[in-house]
């Protein structure tokens, strides 16, 4: 149960997903929180996913305000900090069970989407003008437990995706209507997809094309033909 402390502490329950997409909102939230005179406690019990951008925000906030601490960190949160060799700014008192008094405004929304995604298969959009390739990807990815969306060319990919969030986008480069580079630029310009991992799947194995894709904002690349296991391994590399 809640433990009385000398000073007034404000506890914020962190949402389940603190990924790169959440970083900007999270930054704004903590900026407002540390402006107050209250000590801020971040309840990490619900955190399911947390990545570097949000971790940097927490570290910077902790640097700015030594009274900012994390309470009840979840295993996912602990291991993220551990794996990055970063100190988890837990309260020195070692409280382990603090009752939340305030809930981060954004949290409701973020948590609810997180609940959805938790029970749902990861979703992947594949964009390729070759039916063989689309079918092959569909077969491999659905066998691996992913939910697959398909698009037949770049423009179709942009249309199919719209503002829907997916976990990974896999795109071909040479396509009619809109090529893969343009798809990547397009997606990166949309705040919704700015942080979505995009893998380029192409028979082009030369550096020039990889670099063009990278410059456009691609996360990584795969070379056709692919081995199913390696394909899945590569996807897990960018979206475990």
């Amino acid at each position, binding site marked *: 149960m809640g433990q009385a402390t000398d000073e007034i502490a404000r506890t914020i329950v962190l949402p389940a997903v603190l990924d790169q997409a959440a970083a900007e909102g999270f930054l704004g939230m903590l900026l407002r929180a540390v402006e107050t005179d209250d000590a801020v406690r971040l309840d990490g019990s619900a955190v399911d996913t947390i990545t570097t951008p949000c971790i940097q925000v927490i570290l910077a906030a902790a640097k700015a305000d030594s009274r900012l601490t994390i309470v009840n960190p979840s295993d996912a949160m602990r291991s993220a900090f551990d*794996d990055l060799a970063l100190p988890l700014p837990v309260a020195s008192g070692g409280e382990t069970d603090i009752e939340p008094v305030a809930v981060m405004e954004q949290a409701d929304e973020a948590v609810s989407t997180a609940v959805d995604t938790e029970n749902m298969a990861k979703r992947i959009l594949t964009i390729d003008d070759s039916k063989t390739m689309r079918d092959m990807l569909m077969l491999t990815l659905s066998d691996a437990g992913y939910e697959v969306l398909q698009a037949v060319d770049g423009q179709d990919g942009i249309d199919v995706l719209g503002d829907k969030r997916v976990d990974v986008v896999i795109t071909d480069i*040479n396509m009619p209507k809109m090529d893969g580079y343009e798809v990547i630029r397009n997606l990166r310009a949309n705040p919704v997809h700015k942080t979505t991992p995009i893998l380029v799947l192409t028979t082009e194995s030369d550096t020039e094309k990889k670099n*063009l894709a990278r410059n456009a904002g691609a996360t990584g690349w795969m070379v056709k033909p692919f081995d199913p296991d390696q394909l899945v391994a590569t996807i897990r590399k960018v979206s475990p």
Partner: protein
Amino acid sequence: MSKVDELRNTFFDECSELLQEIEVGLTDIRDGRGTDDTVHAVFRAAHSVKGGAGIFGFETLVEFAHVFETVLDMLRHGTLAASDEVLSVLLTASDILSDLVTMARSGNPVPPGYDSECRAALNRLIGADGDADAASDGAGAEAAGDFDGIDFVPVLADGFGEDEASGDRVFNIAFRPRAEMLKKANEPLYILRELAKLGSLQLTADTSALLPLSELQPDHAYINWTGTLRTAHGRKEIEEVFEFVVDDCDLEIVEELPEGAAAAPIADPVLPDSGVAIVDDAPAEAPANPAADGSSPALAEMPVRTNAAEPAKDGAGAAVKPAAMTTRVDLEKIDRVVNMVGELVIAQAMLGQVVRELPEDMTARLQHCLEEVIHHTRELKDSVMSMRAQQVRTVFQRMPRLVRELSAKTSKNVRLEMSGEATEIDKTIIERLSDPLTHIIRNSVDHGIELPQERRAAGKNEQGVIHLSAGHRGGRIVIEISDDGAGVNGERVLKKAKERGLIDANAVLTEDEINNLIFLPGFSTAETISDISGRGVGMDVVRRNIMDIGGRITLKSEPGRGTTIQLSLPLTLAVMDGMVVEIGQDNYVVPISAIVECMRPTRADVRNLLGTAGTLQLRGAIVPLVHLGDLFGIRGAIRDVVDGVVIIVEAGEGTRLGLVVDELRGHQQVVIKSIEENYGVVPGIAGATILGNGRVAFILDVDRLSGVAGTEMDGVAVPRAEPAVMARAS
């Protein structure tokens, strides 16, 4: 069928489309109709063939497609001009590619060296042979090897395995992400976790670069890491982990050498020659090394990127024609629907019969409804038929290659022009169109088009032109093959026909009739039998094939100006218009397309010639009669011609027959059901159908009736007053 087999089929289906796209595209480019988009489309098609072939491990196909694609890429970027010579190589390459696909599909091994000549020609276009080979090999190896190192099997190599004897190697790694890394959605956490999977990782984070909260950019990276990895893996595996981010971070991977090798410098270890086992794999991702900036391994990479922006620009403009909104349906399913529509047509005819038998005052409304149903059924039938229809393009597309090969063989200069490729015909007809067309075009090149010097002498352009066209005409499809060659040599044809006893020695024929003699069985005018037009199997086989699919073939020729062969084909084979006739108790169906006219003969019209079933005097021509009642042994059929009706039909080779029947019962659309499939071949019968009254009626095979009836009329088969073939063509 397993999923993979299905996928293979998809791949091959897709391949045929892609190969067509390549061929059409290249032809367009050659003929000056190509645009940048055409080149891009051809490139993409070759590229897709390669990609798919790779999945299924068709190595020869992949290798060949790769070289092909490389040349297309040069064409695309303008580093290679689209000269005639280049296009001729590319067209040959598209033929070879198509052959390789066919071999892959059938599972036949590719004969050794099958593609080597063409590949060599492509390589010559790429540049120095050696370079090109190296390039292709390199790409192949890279494509195959790209994933070789991604092997994330976690290795239990922590703590206890500290002793050097374990064979573990130790790497000191410094990883400093740059701001751009996060913007590309690469996550240091995932990368470091991958790294940790390789062995035992001791990591230290440096957060000193972290900005105050108010200045923090959420998508910038501020933390750096240094660490020691003890692993059974090599440098390559470690570099694989950083594969995607190597250009967006500062990365140092330094191997700690074992005591014995301590003399080796540990500093500057990413240079390829500094490590123990890294010589092979370091250069590929050389920019990883900050120290290498401007030094040897990185330099090699630099020039590659100079024109990096160009293809992107091209690609952005590559708005090609919109992809058709199509879905693939198994043909069997469509065939099933076609059959069901057939049954529906029958059921509806039965319903109509019942309605007609009801008292008239009751049926007014019923009749109205029925008409609606009939209307919709017809539309349904047309829609389903159009679903099964394919563009004649699928057959036409095989012809350019044929013409290319033939002109090379015969040393003639021939250009093939095509139009109306988008015309649609039922798939069953398309399938049976390929052989006749091939034969006709062979004939045109072999016999029609003259040698260049002859053409020059005749004041023609050295290049002969064969035009292949398709279009709708009056509910039928008309395909025309015309050439501007020498035309049919009437004199020679007539002489041959007489020599072979195909026509009476005294017969006097019109020019058209003479021309059409070449369709008679066993007729071949080629002075020397070439391996192109074949031996003996001449135009009569072509004609037979066309007749079999309910088509008609006619020929027009002008000496010195060329020949035009016209094929008139039905839209479908599943349903046809028939004339229902009554013979005794039975009903038979005569295909409307074969009927010239019907008449009730007077006694004066009929002549009895010895050895025949009688003949009919028709406006000066003699038409042999066939008593169907006698022929099929039907009881109760009329005995005397003047009591019945004579249907004049065209029975092939310009022959006309007068079919004697009791009565005409009317015109009806009938669904053709095969007898062959269920019973066997019945001479004179093409199939069966079910009539409105539910009874089965046989459909006559008019073309073969004369043979069955044993009419010995072949000698007078082409009566002079009846230019039979031409009359039917109208």
